């Protein structure tokens, strides 16, 4: 428990150091989620995440941002974690050219970037984001990002040089064909090889309501610096009135392992319904909203073997937002597991609060 207070104190000290000058001011924000799970054999509440964002406009052209996560009460002796998910400085030359250095979120697809609980409609991320694109995926490095406009078209790009994913370790317990690449996420102390990885995303939006993205990751993962791991991904977001459709897919190519390819995707539909007619529930909130959502996600963590490493998941749910940053979520998951896994269909409820 002492670690929590030490860490909070350190972050706030840092904020105070950058904040009281005449040119800079610091801001603290974040989110909290509290979850309830009920499966066939167990049920539990979980104090899943308490997140603090500390940011500061150090100068007109220099912007610092960070995200500190306390997971499961930060009880590190009992499954909890304290970790930095982002800590970077943006040096802005123009909207089209911003240089970023630090611990960055890997710009692969949409869900890894927009991972905050109060932004997501479902409590659970798709299984695609667990095994194929290991959300939340962050790394240390340097790169560039920006936004470009041409008429109604809008383009964004992100390109970073980073340490890269770690090796598949025998200590993982499960082989890569069961755990995907989730356990290859890097630490922050040193790279396990000399090769630096690249991660990049390009998004094009021809009109308001349609966004098309493509992402790439490539780098050597092994300690001997001989074998590469690559990810290729595509994502689409479409919005028309209260209807939203979103989908991502990605393929992983791996050298030097008995698993040489993985694949995953999800498709999600959402429909927003105004809740202002239910005055007993919505009080005097300006724009309370219900959202219905349905999602199908599938992953195959070894495409060379038919069906053996295929997982599937159907999620149906509803949520209520009295204001946009507060969301009460209810959902049910039907899961298709691997042969050696137990039935893990479950009911999930949660509250996520952005503050």
């Amino acid at each position, binding site marked *: 428990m002492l670690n929590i*207070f030490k860490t909070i104190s350190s972050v706030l000290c840092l904020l105070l150091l950058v904040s009281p000058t005449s040119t800079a001011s610091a801001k*603290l924000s974040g989110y909290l989620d509290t979850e309830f799970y009920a499966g066939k054999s167990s049920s539990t509440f979980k104090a899943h995440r308490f997140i603090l964002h500390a940011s500061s406009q150090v100068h007109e052209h220099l912007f610092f941002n960070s995200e500190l996560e306390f997971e499961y009460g930060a009880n590190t002796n009992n499954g909890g974690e304290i970790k930095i998910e982002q800590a970077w400085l943006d040096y802005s030359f123009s909207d089209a050219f911003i240089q970023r250095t630090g611990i960055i979120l890997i710009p692969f697809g949409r869900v890894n970037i927009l991972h905050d609980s109060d*932004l997501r409609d479902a409590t659970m991320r798709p299984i695609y984001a667990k095994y194929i694109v290991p959300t939340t995926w962050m790394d240390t490095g340097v790169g560039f990002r920006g936004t470009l406009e041409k008429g109604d078209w809008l383009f964004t790009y992100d390109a970073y040089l980073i340490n890269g994913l770690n090796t598949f370790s025998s200590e993982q317990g499960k082989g890569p064909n069961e755990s995907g690449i989730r356990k290859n996420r890097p630490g922050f102390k040193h790279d396990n090889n000399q090769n630096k990885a690249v991660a990049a995303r390009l998004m094009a939006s021809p009109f*308001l*309501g349609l966004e098309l993205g493509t992402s790439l990751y490539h780098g050597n993962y092994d300690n001997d610096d001989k074998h590469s791991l690559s990810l290729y991904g595509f994502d689409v977001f479409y919005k028309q009135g209260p209807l939203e459709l979103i989908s991502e897919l990605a393929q992983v190519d791996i050298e030097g392992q008995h698993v040489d390819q993985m694949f995953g995707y999800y498709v999600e539909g959402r429909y927003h319904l*105004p809740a202002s007619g239910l005055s007993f529930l919505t009080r005097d909130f*300006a724009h309370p909203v219900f959202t219905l959502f349905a999602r199908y996600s599938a992953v195959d963590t070894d495409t060379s073997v038919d069906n053996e490493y295929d997982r599937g998941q159907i999620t149906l749910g509803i949520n209520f937002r009295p204001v946009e940053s507060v969301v009460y979520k209810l959902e049910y998951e039907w899961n298709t597991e691997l042969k050696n896994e137990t039935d893990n269909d479950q009911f999930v409820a949660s509250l996520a609060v952005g503050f």
Partner: protein
Amino acid sequence: MISLLPPLQSVSKSVSILFCLGCLLMMAGQASAYEKVYYTQEQALAQCFPSARSIETIDISIDNALKQTIEQRLGFSFDKNTVQIFKGYSTDGYLGSALILHEKGKYEPITFMVHISPEKRVSNVILMIYREKVGAEVRKKRFLRQFFGKHASSSIVVDQDIDGISGATISSWALAAGVKKALILSDEI
């Protein structure tokens, strides 16, 4: 030996808690962490009234009766007691009015100007100051022009006649609410 002092860990914890609370209180009163000025008031007025020979600035008090009427038409609360309206005039006559709104985004107010034509329809929306880390896409013309031509009876609701921006939903709602307020104010005053 029995120590009269509390354990070191306990002291550290207490000091940390007090320190954290102190820091939070100090930061609570601070200014916005991020602020980008795209248009000053003068620049925004020049965009709204490029042919104006004069711009009249009028301060209007909102009494309780007027506030009630505005809130009834809006469907949500209106918390201003005074409003400043700019009226533009050219050699050919009246060019319409412009209002500056400060609508709360996720954390900070978004400052923008709404130009309303003599026919009481929105003819321009100019985002002047944006203070959030994300969501500045709401300043793009392809979002703002959705408001053009709207009048006081239009819905101006995200997901109905306005498409919100993914990743900037709260800012989209804020702009929509502000434009609706500007139209109703212009209609009632």
